[in-house]
């Protein structure tokens, strides 16, 4: 506290200090540390006072596979423009590139992460801003990986414009509330692109989830908002664009589900609104389990999916009215744009495939089409009440540019 106001400290070849750890130790609260370009072999840098650390031209901080790189435990810390590499790997300690413990109002901006176990790990940290980071991991097995951005018991976090590749879960939320996830790209993560557990009243908007084990899993949460996201190419035996389990009171609108094995898989989900979504070229657009109730599907486009909706029981407690189905073959005599006969989106053959998956091989054969036609006339296997009473004749204009 010599001068009483914030100072600037430089680290590196021509700087005041050779190591970051030293600089952090000597700095006063509120100081700014500038890290010059270079390679720094350091780990376990613990910051317990409000500091701003800025890297010039992405200085590389390499932990050499031992321990963590930064541990933050104070309010108002900023980390910007750093390149963090090779943290230690331990599932017991959850080692991370940047770990925040009670570090409220932390700002982690424009950093790069390469092969860190967890990249950014927040516990009990409110008001965090995580923006513009590039995360990459390249381990071959799930147990060798941590989550890209991991939040535990946080509030009011903002996670914007990050890119996460090759981690276990791209973004993981547990006991996190009132947070925003915006414009991120989650690509090629082993488990989920984005994963919520017991996290309420969050929103995620304009993100892209591509080619992950499964796109987004939202479980045991309520009042979530999911808008304008892209769920693409999530392929595999139990792969979903979006998994909803024991959810209620959510809004899901303007999303695009393309080329997923299952677009949305939902069980135990209640009072959720699905508006203006596009389902295109999925294996199953929606798997709607009979444990779901009071959900409303309105103004969605279902185009070129193998199966539009499949279910596992006769009980239907959801409303599926006023959508566009490309498989609809009805007519519109009064020209009001709404088909005059209801559409049954459940295909009889999906029940057969459910029981004997290998039967998928005769899909689209003449025999299967005949069976399906017969079933449409006299429903015997498929639930009669699962129908769209007001199917539109033309698709809704929902296409927008991809991010």
């Amino acid at each position, binding site marked *: 506290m010599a001068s009483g106001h914030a100072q600037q400290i430089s680290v590196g070849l021509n700087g005041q200090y050779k190591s970051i750890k030293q600089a952090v130790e000597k700095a006063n609260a509120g100081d700014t540390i500038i890290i010059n370009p270079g390679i720094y072999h350091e780990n376990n840098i613990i910051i317990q006072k409000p500091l701003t650390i800025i890297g010039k031209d992405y200085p590389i901080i390499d932990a050499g596979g031992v321990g963590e790189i930064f541990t933050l435990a104070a309010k108002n810390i900023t980390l910007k423009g750093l390149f963090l590499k090779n943290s230690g790997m331990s599932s017991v300690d959850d080692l991370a590139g940047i770990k925040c413990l009670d570090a409220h109002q932390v700002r982690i901006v424009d950093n790069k992460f390469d092969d860190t176990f967890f990249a950014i790990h927040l516990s009990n940290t409110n008001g965090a801003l995580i923006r513009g980071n590039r995360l990459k991991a390249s381990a071959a097995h799930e147990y060798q990986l941590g989550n890209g951005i991991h939040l535990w018991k946080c509030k009011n976090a903002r996670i914007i414009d990050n890119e996460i590749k090759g981690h276990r879960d791209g973004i993981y939320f547990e006991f996190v509330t009132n947070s925003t996830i915006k414009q991120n790209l989650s690509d090629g993560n082993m488990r989920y692109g984005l994963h919520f557990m017991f996290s309420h009243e969050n929103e995620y908007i304009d993100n892209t989830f591509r080619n992950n084990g499964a796109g987004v899993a939202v479980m045991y949460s309520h009042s979530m908002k999911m808008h304008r996201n892209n769920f693409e190419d999530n*392929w*595999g*035996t139990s*792969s979903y664009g979006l998994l909803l389990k024991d959810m209620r009171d959510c809004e899901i609108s303007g999303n695009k589900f393309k*080329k*997923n*094995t*299952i677009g949305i898989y939902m069980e135990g989900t209640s009072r959720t609104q699905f508006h203006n979504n596009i389902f295109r*070229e*999925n*294996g*199953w657009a929606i798997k709607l389990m009979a444990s779901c109730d009071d959900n409303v599907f309105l103004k969605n486009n279902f*185009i*070129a999916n*193998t*199966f539009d909706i499949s279910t596992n029981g006769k009980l239907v407690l959801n409303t599926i009215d006023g959508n566009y189905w*490309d498989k609809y073959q009805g007519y519109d005599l009064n020209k009001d744009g709404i088909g005059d006969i209801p559409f049954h989106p459940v295909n009889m053959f999906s029940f*057969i*495939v459910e*029981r*004997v*998956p*290998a*039967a*998928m*091989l*005769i*899909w*689209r*054969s*003449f*025999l*299967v*089409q005949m069976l399906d036609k017969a079933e449409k006339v006299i429903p015997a296997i498929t639930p009669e009440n699962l129908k769209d009473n007001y199917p539109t004749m033309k*698709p809704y204009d929902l296409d927008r540019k991809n991010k």
Partner: protein
Amino acid sequence: MTRIIKYILYDMLRTRFILLYLGFLLLATFSMYMLDSDDAKVVLSLLNIMLLIVPLVGVIFTTIHFYNSYEFIEMMLAQPLNRKKIFISQYLAVIMALSLALIVGVGLPIFIYGVNSSALMLLYSGLMLTFVFVSIAFLAAVFTRDKAKAIGVGLLFWFYFALIYDALLLWAIYQFSDYPIEKATLAMISFNPVDLARILMLLQLDSSAMMGYTGAFYKDFFGSNMGFIYSTMVLMLWALIPVSWSMYIFKKKDL
């Protein structure tokens, strides 16, 4: 040989059957593109034509043509011409006529309304089916002198492949559903050219769903080029074996 093919092609154009077929394909494809704005849906509607109409026309046209040109064949055999050459000319001429009709009738609208991979695959599988069913019809035709019988046999094959075989397959899949039957089902599919052509289309239209089920074997098959290569190879066999067999019979046959 090219000269013989030329004469046979002229002859075929005179019967107008090919022109009718071409007209039908053009009309059907154009009208589907006009009715539906979505390309994926058009391909789906055309799929039925490919899997049902194309084999049917292949069978009927080939048999009728073969018997109608019986006298022409006899006349040519009186000339110093190789029997093999005469037969191959006949076969190639029929294939060329039907393929051309298909390429123009379906291909032209596709090129006008926008080319995409699944539409091209549709055309490709249609061509493959033409080859196969012309070969089968030739075999049926050289076996007997009775025209009605040959058409009957050809139709039976068509009906069997288009409908009955899938029913048997579904029954078998159900019966043995407790066993790992993935490879067995794929082997069974190989015994039906219509199914093989359908698989080519599934690779295009339903890969997302096919990836989701039935384990790593299908995943390899449907997720890589393996499915395409395998189907094409087996379809080739389906075309080559009947035609070489019928050529063998034709060479020895007392006409």
